[in-house]
């Protein structure tokens, strides 16, 4: 926890993360972009639709997480030609060795040769969600105590306490929490708090047909993710875990990912830091500035009195 040495006093004060913490492991190598998670989330949590928009951004008309969108499936098309959002992406992976299994599935003529992934490009799909940070900025800055740490280690908004001040919105380093237009309250993924209370999986994990979204004990998920990464890294050299490191800027995510490219290609921050990590120094600077203001007034008043 060396990263947080000077912050423990404030950043830790508001909550404790329980030992037996629940989380998500979203394995994007398995995501087929079906958006079942988005739909299941909306249905279970009774979230309004986002409107019938056409973004012309691949197969994604949802675009981003929001007050009524607590799961968002990103579609990234990486084509050989520089098109779309991936120009800054990692070089495309080398042609995978396609042995009998997949080749026979595709019933390809052997004379055509292996599939040319480098010239075909690839699709990346990933279901984004609230990270349920170990050190959650939204929770720290919430002035009403509407945001709380649940017994599952998740971060949850109490809808009957939030007064819509909006401070959590720019505080989140991932741009997750947002205003829900119809209620005016801050809203985000609760990891289906109500379902967890009844021993059920969150709706998104339950509906995911490929187990790209895995739910469970966070320590178990982390172990599983390490294993999975070791398995896929030969085929996808750019594969990486994102959010599994307890020493990162938010103390590790409660919902972490296996990605196939740099985080920012998926719209995720490369090196997120909980803003309250710097709050002790911010308070110190503020106290000095207030003191300076007072001293300036006192000093300037010398010799201004009436004779």
């Amino acid at each position, binding site marked *: 926890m060396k990263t947080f040495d000077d912050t423990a006093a*404030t*950043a830790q004060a*508001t909550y404790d993360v329980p030992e037996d913490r629940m989380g998500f492991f979203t394995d994007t190598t398995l995501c087929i972009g079906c958006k079942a998670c988005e739909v299941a989330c909306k249905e279970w949590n009774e979230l309004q639709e986002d409107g019938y928009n056409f973004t012309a*951004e691949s197969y994604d008309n949802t*675009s*981003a997480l929001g007050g009524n969108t607590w799961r968002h499936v*990103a579609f990234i098309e990486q084509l050989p030609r520089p098109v779309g*959002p991936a120009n*800054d992406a990692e070089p495309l992976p080398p042609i995978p060795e396609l042995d009998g299994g997949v080749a026979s599935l595709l019933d390809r003529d052997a004379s055509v040769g292996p599939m040319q992934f480098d010239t075909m490009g690839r699709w990346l799909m990933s279901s984004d969600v609230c990270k349920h940070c170990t050190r959650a*900025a939204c929770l*720290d*800055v919430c*002035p*009403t105590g*509407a945001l709380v740490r649940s017994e599952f280690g998740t971060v949850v908004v109490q809808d009957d*306490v*939030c*007064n819509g*001040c*909006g*401070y959590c*919105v*720019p*505080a*989140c380093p*991932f*741009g*997750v929490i*947002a*205003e829900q237009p119809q209620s*005016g309250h801050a809203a985000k993924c609760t990891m289906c708090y109500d379902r967890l209370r009844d021993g059920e999986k969150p709706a998104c994990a339950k509906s995911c047909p490929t187990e790209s979204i895995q739910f469970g004990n966070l320590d178990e998920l982390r172990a599983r993710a390490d294993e999975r990464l070791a398995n896929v890294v030969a085929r996808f050299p750019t594969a990486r875990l994102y959010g599994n490191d307890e020493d990162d800027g938010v103390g590790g995510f409660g919902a972490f990912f296996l990605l196939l490219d740099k985080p*920012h*290609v998926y*719209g*995720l*921050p*490369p*090196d997120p830091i909980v*803003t*309250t990590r*710097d*709050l002790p*120094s*911010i308070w110190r*600077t*503020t106290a*000095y*500035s*207030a003191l*300076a*203001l*007072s001293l*300036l*007034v*006192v000093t*300037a*008043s010398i010799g*201004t*009195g*009436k004779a």
Partner: protein
Amino acid sequence: MTTPMSYYGRPVIKAPTWRWYIGAYLFVGGLAGASTPIVLAARATRNDTLARASLGAACAGIVVSPILLIADLRDPKRFINMLRVFKITSPMSVGSWILTFFGANVAVAAASEWTGIATPLGRTAEVLAALSGPALATYTAALLADTAVPVWHDARHELPFVFAGGALASAASCALIFTPIADAKLARRLATLGAIVEFATLERMKKRLGPLVGEPYRLGGSSRYKQIARMTSALSLALMRGAKGNRTLAIASGLLGITSALCERFSIFEAGKLSANDPKYTVAPQLARRAQREAQAS
């Protein structure tokens, strides 16, 4: 920068949803907060005219501030939830308590001043208001710095001083308008000092932010507000010499000083929105930070 820095160029963080009320509150709270030390300094120098002018300004500030803050809440009837808890990790929570404490003391001091009742109580409240005023004028800088918005968070070492300078300049400018020139020497001094502090710390801030993270100050609304702030501040200072002998010039200088502080707050407020809405300000520094860390580790 032509390379998209995120998913279809969409923002990585969410911009504040705060409307103009909050930008205005940054100014009003600062003016009210910096007015009370002036009240106390004026009392100490037997300058009741100036004290009354600044107390009046603080009083107007505590009436307007809650209105602005509550108006911006998406669920205004729950404004009282702000005082449900006290959280040192939330500058907004701390600020709500500061405003409450400050407001109560200013109200008592002003009521006593204008009714002539319970003067000792009024003067005690005045001292408490003077002690909490600078906190009210500067906590809003901590509030902005304590976000993921790069142009605010990265300015955390200077922003409180910028706010202190701006608040002082606006409070003194306001006093300048309502005080006869014979009693306004302190107001003239502080208006000048405040403007200088604000300008100097802003320059320092821009230097630290650098060309990329500081870019929003050169864009759109933020840049326009900044230009007006610069111009009115320069004019206000230019008129300060004349303000010593001419009430009209003093009023003009005061109005210009107030306009400058107001526009400076809005410039900072708008810069935050621009900073959050373009992913490059979030992503590029983080990539550089990570690369640097990885280079050090290896």
